[in-house]
């Protein structure tokens, strides 16, 4: 870290080199997931929690905070964006891609099976009239 020096050449903030950044995770309500909200700079985890409380718990509903040393975080690279790509043809993984009511109704009509939702549908239609 390059820090500004005093006129006599002595580093003024040298001790801050011992400090670290901590990633802050905020939980709004008990039971919910903790969500990353930002970073604080502190001499250790206890102090980071105090800083996190001031910076991120001050104005909003907070149930709990986590701090994690930034150096402990492993991340993917933005250069590898292609690993997250998915193809639009993969709709077979979506619930919305399956509809079989037409098949069911056709079969019911051909085989004389009562459509149990028919009455409800008719009532609805009458109401709207």
């Amino acid at each position: 870290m390059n820090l500004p020096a005093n006129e006599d050449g002595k580093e003024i903030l040298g001790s801050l080199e011992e400090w670290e950044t901590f990633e802050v995770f905020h939980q709004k309500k008990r039971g919910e997931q903790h969500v990353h909200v930002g970073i604080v700079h502190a001499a250790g985890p206890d102090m980071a929690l105090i800083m996190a409380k001031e910076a991120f718990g001050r104005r909003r509903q907070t149930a709990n905070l986590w701090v994690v040393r930034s150096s402990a975080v492993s991340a993917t690279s933005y250069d590898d964006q292609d690993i997250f790509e998915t193809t639009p043809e993969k709709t077979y993984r979506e619930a919305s891609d399956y509809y079989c009511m037409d098949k069911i109704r056709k079969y019911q009509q051909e085989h004389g099976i009562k459509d149990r939702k028919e009455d409800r549908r008719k009532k609805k239609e009458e109401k709207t009239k």
Partner: protein
Amino acid sequence: MYGNAQIDEKQKSKSLTEGEDPDKLAEFEARITGGEKIEPKDWMPKAYRKQLIRMIEQHAHSEIIGALPEGTWITRAPGFRRKLALMAKVQDEVGHGQLLYSAAETLGKTREDMLNDLISGKSKYSNVFNYPAMTWGDTAIIAWLIDAGAIINQVTNSKGSYGPYCRALERICSEESFHLKYGHDNVVYLATGTPQQRELVQDALNRWWQPIMHFHGPPDKMSEHTVVLMKWKVKMATNDEMRQRFLDEYVPKIWDLGLTIPDPKLKKNESTGEWEYTEPDWEEFKRVINGDGPCNKERLQVRRWAEERGAWVRRALMRAEQKYTVPLA
């Protein structure tokens, strides 16, 4: 995919709260009654921790073992699209196992211990996976109706009291909705197809009806034990309540297709709103869950094989920086 919690009835003679600090216990129970979630570092009674580990671990095992009968059908699935969808489903199930093992780990049992207990037969998994998927019709019935039963159980349990389990279940339920629709689509396709296709799916339904009725577990003895676990929101509904919910939602959908259910007594009592049915053979259930089912040995053998064959990979990953030098002479 999982049935309802198998309560450890052996413990029932002793009080679940024996030796616990009464003040801490009262505070804990008040929090649960107030709808709060319990988190890993919070104080909790020993019996709460024990039952949750048991339940989440069984659930995780069920996801992993449950992927086996369906996984064997990937290469035989009719058509490319169904192969892709089945692969995606099996991948989801194994992923659910991972989410659940992690949730159980927050309570202090290691993954290695859980996997060893599965292989040794000490830990159980959902009984239905001890039956084989004989035809493509069976996989359709599994994907639709077993997953349907599992969703009813999982949605109910996601309202429970242990935070990490509830959060995992919410994620799982959102993925299961695809499985359910995919399974229904397969059943409808067969049921509205040629006479042979209809016969295939009807036969599968006949074979699977008893395991489906077993799925949520035997009727609960409403022991003191069960009452406490329900108060602690470990168990969220009785096995019979879950079964009723399942029947109410899915029997009409089965009948919509003109399929028959192999139980002449099955009908809804309109005055009570409850379904009446023939009790499935609970002796068979007990026998199968204790190891004497058509596939128990095979399922565990596959799991043991994977564990043994993968051991060197896990060891190598622990010391990724080490290089292995092949001796030249």
